[in-house]
């Protein structure tokens, strides 16, 4: 029996929108998501841009309020109800759960040296007592992220996008967290450094037994690093499966479309990717039934009327589509 580190149950996040003080519309960015993340796993989260991946990650870190449903964190030492965390328990959770940002430019203060950026969480959380202790810890983690002493003295503007991302990673790891949400953390890196950082993350993960939620648009990277993958569309999980199973046989029409659009390395494949057509739905004005029906090539009347629910086959592979079984037989992926 494996331990579950994070368990979300019917989790939703709504943002008030519509200008002025009297914001009355609600944008439901995450909608009724239930998911379990095993301790020590590399859990991949993929899906459409704007589908709620970052918001889900932030909700699990209690960086945005959970508006409905529950989420629990239990690492053997503590068992926490994330939605209701406050005061000292919240402070404690901040040490245990960290975010590596999507946009390293926005994340790094331009007026702080790299050393101070990495050291800040240690000081704010009161993890180290003396400057020497802080410096030692900063240097250790910086070296792990392949930043040298000279880098530590500089300001972030002097770094390339990729270098900045390694600074963000060092900052996130410095407090010794258990759970890390890595949001597009390697998107800015060239493929060689990406491979290097991924190997680094995997190594740190296995050495320190960390659990990662890995949000990425790069499906080849996800395929190579994650144990389990969930696919999001318009605030919902539409498919979730062990990585190999998902890539060997995607079941949801959205997942299939996604996989077929992975740009091929062969210049002669131009124009061969399957294109999605139809209206891209808005989270403030959601379609009836299956949220994908406006763009799904296989939609039938039932899809427009009834919302499908995630259903499994006992193998850990779950999908929410009325027609998946029949499509698996008739339409090869």
């Amino acid at each position, binding site marked *: 029996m494996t331990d579950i580190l994070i368990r979300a149950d019917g989790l939703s996040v709504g943002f008030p929108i519509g200008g002025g003080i009297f914001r009355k519309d609600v944008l439901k960015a995450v909608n009724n998501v239930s998911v379990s993340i095993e301790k020590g796993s590399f859990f991949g989260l993929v899906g*459409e*841009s704007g589908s709620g991946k970052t918001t889900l990650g932030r909700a699990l870190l209690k960086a945005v309020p959970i508006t409905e449903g529950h989420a629990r964190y239990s690492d053997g030492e503590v068992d926490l109800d994330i939605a209701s965390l406050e005061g000292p328990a919240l402070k404690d959770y901040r040490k245990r759960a960290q975010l590596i940002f999507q946009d390293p430019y926005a994340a790094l203060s331009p007026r702080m040296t790299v050393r101070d950026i990495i050291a800040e969480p240690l000081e704010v959380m009161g993890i180290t007592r003396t400057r020497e202790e802080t410096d030692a810890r900063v240097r250790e983690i910086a070296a792990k992220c392949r930043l040298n002493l000279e880098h530590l003295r500089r300001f972030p503007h002097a770094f390339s996008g990729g270098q900045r991302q390694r600074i963000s990673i060092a900052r996130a790891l410095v407090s010794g967290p258990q759970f890390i949400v890595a949001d597009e953390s390697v*998107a*800015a890196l060239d*493929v060689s450094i990406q491979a290097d950082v991924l190997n680094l993350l995997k190594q740190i993960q296995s050495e320190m037994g960390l659990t990662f939620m890995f949000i990425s648009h790069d*499906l080849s990277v996800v395929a190579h690093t994650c144990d389990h993958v969930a696919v999001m569309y318009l605030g919902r999980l539409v498919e979730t499966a062990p990585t190999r199973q998902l890539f060997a046989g995607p079941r949801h029409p959205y997942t299939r479309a996604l996989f077929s659009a992975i*740009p091929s390395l062969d*210049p002669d494949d131009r124009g061969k990717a399957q294109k999605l057509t139809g209206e891209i739905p808005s989270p403030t004005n959601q379609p009836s039934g299956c949220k994908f029906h406006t763009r799904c090539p296989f939609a039938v009347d039932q899809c427009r009327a009834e919302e499908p629910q995630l259903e499994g086959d006992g193998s850990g592979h779950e999908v929410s589509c009325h027609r998946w079984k029949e499509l698996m037989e008739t339409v090869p992926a």
Partner: protein
Amino acid sequence: MNTLIDVQNLTLQFRTDEGLVTAVDNVSFTLDKGEVMGLVGESGSGKSVTAKALMHLNASNAVYSPDAKITLFTEDGPVDVLSLRKPAELKVVRGGAVSMIFQEPMASFAPAMTIGKQMIEQLQLHSDMSKAQARNLSVEMLDRVGISDAGKRIDQYAFELSGGMRQRAMIAMALSTKPKLLIADEPTTALDVTIQAQVIDLMKDLVDEFHMGIIFITHDLGVVAQTADRVNVMYLGRLIEEGPVREVIRTPKHPYTQGLIAALPKLEDLDAPLTPVPGDIPSPLERPPGCVFHTRCGQVVGAACSSVAPEELAIDDTHKVACHIYSEAGV
């Protein structure tokens, strides 16, 4: 003449507390109208800095070499980009004939202004459109980059959009002025692959419609394969290989390019380990003598690699490489 921009002997250094840092080292290339050039290379190799030089937009501590020359060919004649000083002169390379999609979407939108307000201002600055016309065009462009409910989204702030939406809003803004040269710096890193395909199609349409030239900076070699005509590869400020996309991807000549392609995670083989180019990137303050790549190269051919900087050599009419494996000095 079909040349859109001509870059000659671009060397660019930054003054820092620790001394002069060389970010770009004697780079020359040209881009034709209607051509899409992929620019790839190591993180920190100088791609963004090179791109910003084309708009004369580098930080105030930047020092250009005296013989560096960047010429933009516009309808009103050639423009010597590095001689532009006043804001009015610079307009042509900053949103006029040249537009850039910046690598950092958050940094490109002012936090306290809606994205619409910024798009409209930008359009009005570079055209004689009325506010209403500018707004309509902005909504249309947001729609074309796949933002649903664009009429409402336009009145939101950047922080209210997802990472990929911000990136698309920036693409929409850069394309709305119909530039002759589009510099796209990692424009699709925050997009899922279906939206990415849509955005790339839009760019290609504009290449066909207006003969727009694109410099496409990306580390995604799949995207390069699907969009670029030619590819330039940079390493530590040097241009080390250039050629037609098919040749560079199928038969890379430079050991760094070969390493880059080998480092790609392959979907066909999930058991294969990820293999980065071995070794550490040298600090830009201590650039290796000879070939800048020799400290990490597995194919060093002799003493020349660590002492003589390899010249760019023609493999054939269109494919060039700077590496001693192919030169007299190396054999």
